[in-house]
């Protein structure tokens, strides 16, 4: 029993979950508005875009890569789809299909560059981020699109759950199914854990990379559509700058930047942690400019706690070896 408890406490998602519970308890005693259904649903709604992007990024991190360009991909896909919807009309199916297609294509471009140039993913995706975003700004001249169709901007809810939350839930469940139940998901874990072994086992490396970066692009574009639906406009630079928040949430949720490690449940908790923190601070009336400071500290503490534990573990095993 004691061992089981210790095992639980060593699990990263359990630790993060505990922190979430403690923080939520603190905020609800200080502010009576925190633990109300209305506030909680608002919170979920406003972090759904981030959650959809995180689902895509998680898969890239598991494969041992990183994607910085997904917010730019989301912005580009969002813009292209908005133009098509405004000019030709359409429906939700068309909107998501087109966005997903554009997003996946831009993601595959990342994958091909990474595979065939042999360049590291962080450099390639920073470059494509700049490239995709600059083209978007050049073409739009920074102008927003306001005249989105009514069906697109009006509020929808399924069983009283707002539409963005529904999409986020589907995205996360799909990703959960992908990484834990599909053989391609297990190959992605293998690739992230030991790329050389994956190659020797006969994994199709370029295929896997196209899949993960395509998936990240796809999810980003879907998130872009949901974001446009929420704010009822398409602003070219609205999503830029979000990539590091999303990355932070996924890493906070236990995904490793060196690949092979990461879970959907952890990612959800990482986002919930950031959401609770920022929402609680707002309710306490703290200036929103301080969010960055607080989230920065939380991420730093969390990431360095993980790294420190790994370092201690390494030291212990060296001592055992002697």
């Amino acid at each position, binding site marked *: 029993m004691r061992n089981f408890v210790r095992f639980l406490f060593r699990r990263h998602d359990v630790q993060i979950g505990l922190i979430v519970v403690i923080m939520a308890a603190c905020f609800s005693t200080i502010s009576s508005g925190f633990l109300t259904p209305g506030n909680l649903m608002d919170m979920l709604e406003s972090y759904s875009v981030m959650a959809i992007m995180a689902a895509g990024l998680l898969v890239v991190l598991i494969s041992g890569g990183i994607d910085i360009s997904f917010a730019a991909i989301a912005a580009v896909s969002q813009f292209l789809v908005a133009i098509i919807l405004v000019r030709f009309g359409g429906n939700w199916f068309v909107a998501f299909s087109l966005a997903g297609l554009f997003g996946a294509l831009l993601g595959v471009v990342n994958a091909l560059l990474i595979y065939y140039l042999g360049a590291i993913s962080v450099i390639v995706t920073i470059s494509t981020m700049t490239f995709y975003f600059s083209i978007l700004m050049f073409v739009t001249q920074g102008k927003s699109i306001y005249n989105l169709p009514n069906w697109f901007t009006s509020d929808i809810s399924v069983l009283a759950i707002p539409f963005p939350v529904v999409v986020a839930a589907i995205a996360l469940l799909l990703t959960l199914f992908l990484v834990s139940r599909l053989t391609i998901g297990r190959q992605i874990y293998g690739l992230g854990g030991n790329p050389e*072994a994956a190659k020797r086992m*006969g994994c199709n490396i370029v295929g896997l990379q196209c899949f993960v970066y395509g998936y990240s692009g796809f999810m980003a574009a879907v998130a872009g559509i949901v974001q446009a639906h929420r704010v009822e406009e398409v602003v070219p630079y609205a999503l830029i700058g979000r990539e590091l928040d999303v990355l932070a949430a996924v890493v906070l949720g236990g995904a490793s930047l060196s690949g092979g490690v990461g879970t959907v449940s952890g990612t959800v908790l990482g986002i919930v942690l950031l959401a609770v923190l920022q929402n609680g601070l707002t309710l306490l009336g703290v200036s929103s400019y301080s969010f960055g400071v607080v989230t920065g500290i939380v991420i730093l503490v969390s990431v360095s706690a993980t790294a420190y534990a790994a370092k201690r573990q390494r030291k212990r095993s060296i001592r055992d070896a002697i």
Partner: protein
Amino acid sequence: MMVPRELAEHDQPEPTPAFVEMLGISKRFSGVQALRNVSFTIRSAEIHCLAGENGCGKSTLIKILAGVYAPDEGTIILNQQAHSHLSPAASQRAGVQIIYQDLSLFPNLSVAENILFRRHLAMPSRLVRRAEIVKQAREVMARLGVNLPVEEVVGRLPIATRQLVAICRVLAAEARLVVMDEPTASLTHHEIDALLETVRGLKAHRIATVFVSHKLEEVMRIAERVTVLRDGSKVGTYPASEINRYRLTELMTGQKFETSLKPAFSSKTPPILEVRGLTRRGHYEEVDFLLRPGEILGIIGRLGSGRTELALSLFGMNPPDAGEVLIGGKPARLPTNRAAIRHGIGYVSEDRLSLGLVMPQSIADNIVISVLKKLTGVLGLIDGGRRRKSVNHWIDELHVKTRAPDRPVQELSGGNQQRVVLAKWLATDPRILILDSPTVGVDVGAKVGIYQIIDALAARGIAIIFITDEVEEVLHQTNRILVMLSRRITATLDPGKVTERELREAISA
């Protein structure tokens, strides 16, 4: 010096059918002849050693068998079919499986998933069936007679257990021939015994095993035949019963080595190092010994005997609880390695790759890294001329084979890297040099080079502590032997008055 018998080529009468025959294989890489007309036959279910020094062509031959390289000339007969070359898929389909030295496991996945990872690549199954994977992994483990924690993540397992996972994986792939690349390099004696037992189990399942190694003492115990390569050519294939260590060394290097004992060491000079009752609880206890300038003192003991802990204490990296250390007759405190270096103590670590050298930096930088202070001129800046002079001096002195001292150390061969480590410590002008398993992982020819360096150092009056777990090495290369067992010095022996067998028993009693 033992005179070896001339042995007959033993390829002709084949008692069991050949599983694979590689005939007249040649391979060139951009001007370098890696293999020259090599024939290599592996019978079904036999245990075969492929021996040779680094760079002799072993790996190339194995990669041709695995289908990674296509040979320039030659034929490969596999399952009665002749091929000019194999593809990786064809090789694996025929049942050829390679276990590389790094094992190529997925550290983040469970034992069961590692063993059956290939199922994830099989086309019709897109869904992961966990229960089935665990069940099949258990079946494979039962066939091999091992019991591994199927749900545990491989990265948390010790290296010997990981090796078993790799063997289970090739078994799950229906292997008929398993090639193990340097399987014993990172195992303890006990673990090697267990591995050899496992390989016997493979034989019982009619699976052939090829050990690829330059360190063959252990695997020779169960091998049936040995094929030796040298400089890309085959020296011959011999029954293992007709090969011993000395013979094998000669075949691999083409040279005869003197294995005479050192003349007895006698010196009237006062001891440079005196250790009295040195103790660190849990590490080693009540250690006493003397060391004179120019003497080579062997400390033999197995992993866990306390030998490395003692060495680290003398180098100031593992402070003792009790006892004293006298250097040059005066009590010395060694709280840090900087203090030890100040007292003229040098330490060359066992793991030369991670502790001894900064691999991506140049040979020159590595040599002078511990004496930078001595090379500074005005304003505390490094004097380029003095640095160059020091570097060139040591490269000549120790015969480091290199085109230029500004090349990264990682480009050097193992033996030459070892010389750079020695140069680094010699530059500090040590009085006592501790060598912790200096010949681990280097091949036979390079080993002899290292022994010559050690002798040269001792001849300069440097006192040497030579830590090893190889019996014949300590017998032939030291003046006096301390046996370390269960954290104590259990005997002090004269190499001239003790046999290999006695010494082997002393360290494992």
